[in-house]
């Protein structure tokens, strides 16, 4: 089943009435089945935008629509079965096993009162296999490495079987092989199951490799929004990140780019 369209209308946000706006009013639509990368320097409002779109934060102004509905009015259970969100850093204080953590993703699909979990083993196993965390099943989440915990969290979000996946820097704690593995997985879910994927990414090369659309944010404003080749160009990256880069066509198909930094951050 196709995911509903996610649409931000005139969306703005600040953390408290006296604080400056983190996000200037913006309009943004996510087509069902697209793979969108959100770029921007630290503090540009990426996480805030993701949290607004995932329903974790409420907007000061404007609204987010999921299909025809106001996303912030949809009951938690129904929203969680449509949209899954993986925040950047998760601290679990109780020593649940990694399998138990992934099983929590089945909460929206619980039968009865959720007092006994049965009948979810197959989904849980598949999600753990997809993210390469089957070996960690009986390890405590409090005792695995940051990268392993990150993959467990992604497995947990997958267990929700939602059709829209919103991830805040899903590759940040991962080494290069798992970065590629997680991006491959997201890309596979996107292509084969038609899931909408929206991810904040710091690695511009990965973004160009996997996303079919990129949105560049700076100081809460959309600086550019389009296919990778249109966004990843030296002048824009200078304006957004303040760095000099050289863009080279990558091997193989045309949208792949290699970005080589050639100069440091401008004052």
């Amino acid at each position, binding site marked *: 089943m196709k995911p509903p369209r996610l649409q931000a209308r005139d969306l703005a946000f600040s953390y408290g009435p006296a604080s400056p706006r983190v996000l200037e009013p913006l309009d943004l639509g996510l087509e069902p089945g697209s793979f969108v990368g959100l770029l921007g320097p630290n503090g540009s409002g990426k996480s805030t935008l993701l*949290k607004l779109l*995932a*329903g*974790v934060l409420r907007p000061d102004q404007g609204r987010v629509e999921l299909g025809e509905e106001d996303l912030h009015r949809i009951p*938690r*259970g129904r*929203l*969680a*079965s449509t*949209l*899954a*969100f*993986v*925040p950047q850093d*998760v*601290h*679990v*204080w*109780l*020593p*649940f*096993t990694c*399998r*138990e*953590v992934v099983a*929590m*993703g089945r*909460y*929206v699909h*619980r039968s009865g*009162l*959720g*007092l*006994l*979990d*049965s009948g979810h083993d197959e989904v849980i196993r598949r999600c753990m296999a997809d993210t390469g965390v089957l070996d960690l*099943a*009986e390890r405590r989440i409090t005792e695995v490495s940051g990268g392993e915990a990150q993959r467990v*969290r992604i497995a*947990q*979000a997958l267990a*929700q079987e939602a059709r829209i996946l919103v991830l805040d820097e899903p590759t940040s704690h991962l080494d290069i092989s798992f970065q590629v593995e997680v991006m491959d997985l997201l890309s596979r879910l996107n292509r084969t199951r038609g899931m909408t994927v929206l991810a904040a990414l710091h690695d511009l090369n990965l973004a160009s490799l996997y996303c079919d659309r990129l949105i560049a944010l700076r100081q809460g404003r959309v600086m550019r929004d389009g296919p990778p080749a249109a966004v990843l160009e030296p002048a824009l990256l200078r304006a957004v990140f303040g760095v000099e880069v050289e863009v080279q066509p990558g091997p193989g198909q045309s949208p792949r780019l290699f970005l080589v930094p050639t100069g440091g951050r401008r004052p």
Partner: protein
Amino acid sequence: MKRTSLALRLALACAGGALLLAVAGLVGMLVGSVPITPGELWMAWSDPARLDPATATILLDLRLPRVLLGMLVGASLALAGSGFQGILRNPLADPYIVGTSAGAALGATLAIVLHLPSPLPWLSPVPALAFLGALGAMLAVYRLARIGNTLPVETFLLAGVVVGSFAGAMVSFLMTMAHEDLPRVVFWLMGSLGQADASRVALVSPYLLIGGVALYLLSPALNLASMGDEVAWSLGVDVERLKIRVILAGSLVTAAAVSASGLIGFLGLLVPHLARMLVGPDHRVLMPASALGGAAFLVMADTVARTVGAPQEIPVGVVTAMVGAPFFFWLLHRRKGLS
């Protein structure tokens, strides 16, 4: 490590807890300043008419309500502690964190010092006013901490401290005025099951029953809350509603327990940690394990409290704190060594 199913872990925890509780209950009935033989206990059950009247009084009018009240209060405090630690994600949270203890203390002190009549006809003045004080403090904390539709953890803890300090100051003030009533106030503040009777058992039972069922039903969501508000939210838990429900259930259970027995410290902090070590963090197993463990723990502590210096009784709160504090230190130290 092989995974044991939730149902099996739950069954094991309940069976183990029930066994422990049964042993604690038996010991609590048999041991005391007047020892009772198992035969006499059996006779009290099978043929009470043949029992010597003094023994019957000790068993049925003194020890039975006391053991029952100990079980109910212990279970209440441990359940509330597990709930508060879970929802506040704070291993140092205890049932008194909401200010119910200070509110109850103020109510009880007022009743003792000013010799107020009971506003609740079915209860004697001290538990009645303690209960009303606990409810009042809980409502005050809730009103202070609530911002719009949310109950932020920091404001909540702060409001608990503010209300607790204020009520504590009032208690101190009343104590300076108390004169001959001072020992009663002090004894109440240290916690005791010495006043156990049917009316106090009846005061605690319904709250423990309703609060316990509520907390158990909320336990799957409590598991998710350990991931943090944002994750729990995106997994489908209405975190704010959960917070309010857990705090309400925990506070009511605590309010009833505190008014029946005074301030029994450390149990609500310690037992959830012990239970978590034994059965793991899943609240669906932890809640029943905590309740049974807390019940057994308090009955045993009370047996010690009334036998160690017999015929003089030690407040049971002194026993729980004397056992609990070093044990808790060891627990934290051990965990620090692991990480």
